[in-house]
């Protein structure tokens, strides 16, 4: 498998926030880690990103054990919930920031930055200040910045939670398109069942630090492994794409 988490464990003081978590993910797939707040999903993401060191277990990416590699050297990038854009730089400077640390000429950096900005439809805002952009635009800059370094794996930590509903829907589809187009492997953390069902190739449901179920959206929805997973999904109806993936999740009752 492309990404393998093997028996990950993490404690904060007395509290064991991630318990014996094992996951596998194929190249080019998008995995959603789904769970209520406090279930350990962000902690897991931070361990994959290298910002937290696991207390046990290891992380393999493309056959390599990346557990001891610091984040700046990991071929993994993260799109943060609040984007973490640099307010003192222009849009293009933000997008090309990671490229400074690769062996590239100024010309190459510029070109690659612009091509990713085009990809997210913001080429005309290259020289804008970050503060001058709307929330959705900032989100796209953050995404372009993470993708521009062409990582082996891109992590997204509830990236759409600051957007309004309409924009969120739009961004979900855009992300899915980009991911397919570029064939990038992604891990996406969310607490929104609808989002997970729409985006994911596979969903990992986490409960109290442990993996409750890992499967495709269809399987997960059809055959929840535990009553709590079923309750958490709380979705009544799904609309399907022609290729058999979820197009829309319809909720007639709220999750409990």
């Amino acid at each position, binding site marked *: 498998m492309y990404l393998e988490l093997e028996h990950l464990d993490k404690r904060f003081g007395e509290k064991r926030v991630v318990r014996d978590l094992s996951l596998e993910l194929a190249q080019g797939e998008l995995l959603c880690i789904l769970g209520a707040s406090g279930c350990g999903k962000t902690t897991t993401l931070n361990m994959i*990103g*290298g*910002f937290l060191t696991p207390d046990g277990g290891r992380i393999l990416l493309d056959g390599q054990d990346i557990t001891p590699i*610091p*984040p*700046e*050297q*990991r071929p*993994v*990038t*993260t799109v*943060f*919930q*609040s*984007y*973490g*854009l*640099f*307010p*003192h*730089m222009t849009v293009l400077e933000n997008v090309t*920031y*990671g490229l*400074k*640390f*690769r062996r590239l000429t100024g010309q190459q950096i510029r070109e690659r930055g612009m091509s990713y900005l085009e990809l997210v439809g913001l080429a005309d805002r290259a020289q804008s200040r970050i503060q001058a952009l709307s929330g959705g635009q900032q989100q796209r800059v*953050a995404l372009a*910045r*993470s993708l521009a*370094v062409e990582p082996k794996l891109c992590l997204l930590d509830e990236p759409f939670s600051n957007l309004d509903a309409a924009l969120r829907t739009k961004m979900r589809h855009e992300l899915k398109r980009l991911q397919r187009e570029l064939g990038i492997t992604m891990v996406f953390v969310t607490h929104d069942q609808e989002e997970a069902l729409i985006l994911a190739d596979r969903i990992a449901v986490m409960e109290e630090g442990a993996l409750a179920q890992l499967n495709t959206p269809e399987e997960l929805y059809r055959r929840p492994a535990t009553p709590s997973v079923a309750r958490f999904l709380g979705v009544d109806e799904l609309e399907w794409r022609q290729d058999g993936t979820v197009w829309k999740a319809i909720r007639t009752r709220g999750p409990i």
Partner: protein
Amino acid sequence: MSKNNPVGKGASGDALFPAVRRLADRLILLLLLGGICLFILYPMLCILWRSLQGEGGLTGDMYGVVWEQYGRSLRNSVFTATCTSLLCTLFSTATALLISTGRGWRRALGMGLLLITMVSPPFVSALAYIQLYGRRGWITYRLLGLSWNPYNCWGVIWMQSLSFVPVNALFLIGMLSRMDRDSLMSARDLGAAPRDILRDVVLPLLRPGILVCVLLSFVRSIADFGTPVTIGGRFTTIASDIYLQLTGYSNLEKASAMNMFLLVPSVAAFFLYRWLMGKTGPVSGERAQQQRLQLSLSRCGAAGWLALVTGGLFFGMIGLQYVCIVATGFIQRTRGALSFTTQYLEELLEYNSETMVRSVIYALIVALVGTLFAMLFSYYIYRRRVRWNTFFDCLATLPYMLPGTCFGIGYILAFNHPPLKLTGTAIIVLANMLFKQLPTTTKICAATLSQIPEAQERAVRDLGGDQLNVMRDVIFPGLRPAFLSCFAYNFSSSMTTAGAVLFLIDPGHQLAVFKLFDAVYSGEYALASLMATFIIVIVLLVEGGVYLAMGRKERSHVS
């Protein structure tokens, strides 16, 4: 007022007298602005008036004299202030980075040293400085064998730079704690080494704060007379010349004119500061984060090492200074031979505790009233934006720019005749302390205020509350963190500043800091050191007590 109302606070009980409550709101505003006019504007005008007085009535002659005579001192002042503000900002930034990235006992020790430095009375630091780095200082001469002379402008710059650090560093630490952690993580994630993060993200984001430190240190250095008087040697600044005019020549007209003169660079710096703040916007509105700044300075290249070395140097010098101060209190020197003694401690314990008690009471009053004043004032000026708010805001900043002694003289000039005869009373001393410290406390409140969402305020109005409800239910609870900082600042400043109230104290109202001054003056360094230690301990105890009390309230509030 809501007691009669079983339904809850707010509704009918408060609404019964809307007109009365509106009046109360106006009255508070009037009281605040009146206070500012009476205790800042009026004394300032008195100084201006005095500076225009010549033998034959009103004249601007004094300004010509001052310009001719003190042009050099003014240049010295500006030079010193420029150097001090740069050096001090370097120290402050390094210290702030060191503390923000540090952990465990080192962080605690750093914060502790900063707090101690902030609450230290003047004079004793200068003494320790001479003992350590004087012509025959323990470090400079005995240890390093240098024959360096500290009695010049470099000594002044060095000492000012050290003593201005705490306020700046605490400000920068606050800013660093509010810095968006995701930005830092992103940079790291994208492949930036610590060195790049520091250079590309941390320092640029800190830039507005660094600029503020530069400008505030500049203004403070211009107004500081104590340092050049103590260790300036032949070096004169405009502030030290003013001191000389007051103490040596008792020439109020000239001193007043020199004061107006000194305001020129300070006011210029202040407007630059306002302009910059307007450009960069208020300090980031994010809430402080618990998370430590994860950055290993030793891996940050040259800039990181510079921060480590200067920060370390600062803490080393400050630490040594306090070791020196405490040690002086217990060491007896007999013909060069040193021996341990508790003799001075016994002497101190025999001292009349009355002045110490009075100092503490005064400081408590100023801390409470001053904090309340600053909270209300910042609410009306920055939130309600009452008419003339810019004017009053500038007015409230003036005391920061004046040497303390002059602000005191202004008070005597203003309040020596009925119906405003306050000289010889405690009120004049309290008011002077309060308004001298107001510039800092209002800025603290304003910064905190900007973090209270205006939506909360609107919600109160929307649900039927009036301005007074807004104050009680939103502003005061929201300003709780500012209350702590203001209280601590007011209390320690009132306990330790001497310059401003030097001329206002009368024999019936002696304060502890002047006892300390007397001890320094008469060469009783051991006693002075012990008194300073004692004052520091009292200030830390009181502030720690208030912090704990407020913290408990906070905790019970949350749960």
